């Protein structure tokens, strides 16, 4: 390793091939990598001179001040459609997920692990083989190994699976009525016990839906969104931009032409509140919106109230969930 390259990496003047050579070389050498990480921090902190950013600071502050002063609800987005109110909170706080994990390894079996994610937070689980699983708000995931050596995941909630391809490992998401079988893919599954539907969206790779009898139901391709209705046991396959289904993972709510009742369910789950809609027509009114999850429920309601003359009232409870009433 030449010292020159090392410097170029540190002060960011290395070209692509130099970077490639360097990063590949430290990737396989933990000792060297450790050393690089230390130097990197040393270099960054050693170069810290806050006064050099005076200009950015002034600009940022005046921008910050404008934003906090104009934070009162405004009629800021036009393009009203009758059923769809687009409210985009471009200027909201950044996503701050609490990556809190609660692995509970049971004593009787080393292969049984439970993970859960609290309401209002997103958690990630990293498996030994490099696969990752994101758990949405209020989700419980149990991972087991069965006798055949297959990994079985049971889910109550919503999770995004990013699984490393491994022909020797079978990964199955057991959803009761059917199973999802995977070999190296990324997909989202939403299966809250409290909800009437189970849905899955495939981002990449391929997954098979298997009946509990073992019979293959259908093969899902990337970009397909499969929804299962628990009551009438119907399966519907649609095309959907996978980024919509996985937006929660990136700290956003994305609602595309969804009834207020469904939107409120999502908000209830994230903010741990109870929302009552006093008007059936209003409950069925559809909205389209993108909101960062880090914003407060109050802000979301405020936006709704300016966009569609919705009234809301929050009752803070000493015990139990706060109750929010929404009416026209």
């Amino acid at each position: 390793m030449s010292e020159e390259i090392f410097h170029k990496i540190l002060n960011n003047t290395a070209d692509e091939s130099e970077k490639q050579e360097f990063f590949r070389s430290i990737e396989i050498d933990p000792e060297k990598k450790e050393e690089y990480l230390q130097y990197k921090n040393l270099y960054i902190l050693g170069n810290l001179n806050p006064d050099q950013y005076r200009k950015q600071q002034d600009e940022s502050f005046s921008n910050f001040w404008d934003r906090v002063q104009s934070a009162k609800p405004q009629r800021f987005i036009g393009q009203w459609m009758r059923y769809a109110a687009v409210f985009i909170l471009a200027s909201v706080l950044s996503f701050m997920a609490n990556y809190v994990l609660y692995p509970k390894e049971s004593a009787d079996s080393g292969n049984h692990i439970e993970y859960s994610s609290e309401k209002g937070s997103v958690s990630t689980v990293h498996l030994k083989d490099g696969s990752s699983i994101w758990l949405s708000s209020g989700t419980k995931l149990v991972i087991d190994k069965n006798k055949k050596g297959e990994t079985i995941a049971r889910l109550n909630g919503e999770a995004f699976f990013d699984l490393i391809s491994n022909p020797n490992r079978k990964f199955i998401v057991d959803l009761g009525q059917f199973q999802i079988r995977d070999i190296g893919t990324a997909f989202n599954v939403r299966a809250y016990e409290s909800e009437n539907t189970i849905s899955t969206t495939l981002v990449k790779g391929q997954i098979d839906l298997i009946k509990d009898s073992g019979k293959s139901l259908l093969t899902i391709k990337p970009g397909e969104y499969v929804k299962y209705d628990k009551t009438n046991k119907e399966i519907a396959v649609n095309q959907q931009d996978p980024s919509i289904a996985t937006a929660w993972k990136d700290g956003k709510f994305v609602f595309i032409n969804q009834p207020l009742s469904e939107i409120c369910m999502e908000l209830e789950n994230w903010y741990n509140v109870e929302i009552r809609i006093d008007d059936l027509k209003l409950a069925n009114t559809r909205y389209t919106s993108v909101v960062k999850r880090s914003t407060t429920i109050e802000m979301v309601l405020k936006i709704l109230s300016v966009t569609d003359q919705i009234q809301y009232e929050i009752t803070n409870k000493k015990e139990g969930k706060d109750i929010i009433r929404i009416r026209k």
Partner: protein
Amino acid sequence: MDKQYPIFNITALRKGEKKAYEEIYTEFFGVLYHLCLHYLRNEKIAEELVQDTFLKLWEIRETLNEQINIRSFLYTITKNNCLNHLRNQKISLKHQENMKYLEMQFNYEALEKLGNYIQFEELRNKIDDAISKLPSEIIETFRLSRFEEFSYKEIADQQGISIKTVEARISRALRILRVELKDYLPIIYMISRIFC
């Protein structure tokens, strides 16, 4: 060498007074922006993330009390947001098999190592201390390189030395610092190796 920190006017912050926020901005923006900028390598996102941190402070201003550690609050939120951003970027880059993916991965790991605010401040003070103890010819070169506007080439021109000498001095500075700071840098592999 303990730094004297200005005491923030909590009452003014709670009331949302401009001057109080201006003071906090002056105290923190540079440090937070520097961190975001160097780990994320994107000026626009760095600015956004730091501003988001201050907006978060604004949002909770009414809950501020004398006990809350504002410095730690600002640092932690910024660091977490940076980590989140790197993580998300890693995910999207992973599928493109871009070299940037590895770079982001290493930046993520490096940033994680900075620890909590107290550890970060301690390391920062130690670095300042250690820099002031460097040999004088090195100190000058190193100080010049501390201003981002000066590339190695510009430092070389200014000091009438070659770029190689600049590099050598900075390597030496970093090496001395690393030895000096060995108790403060999380060293997992005790065997020290020279990086060349």
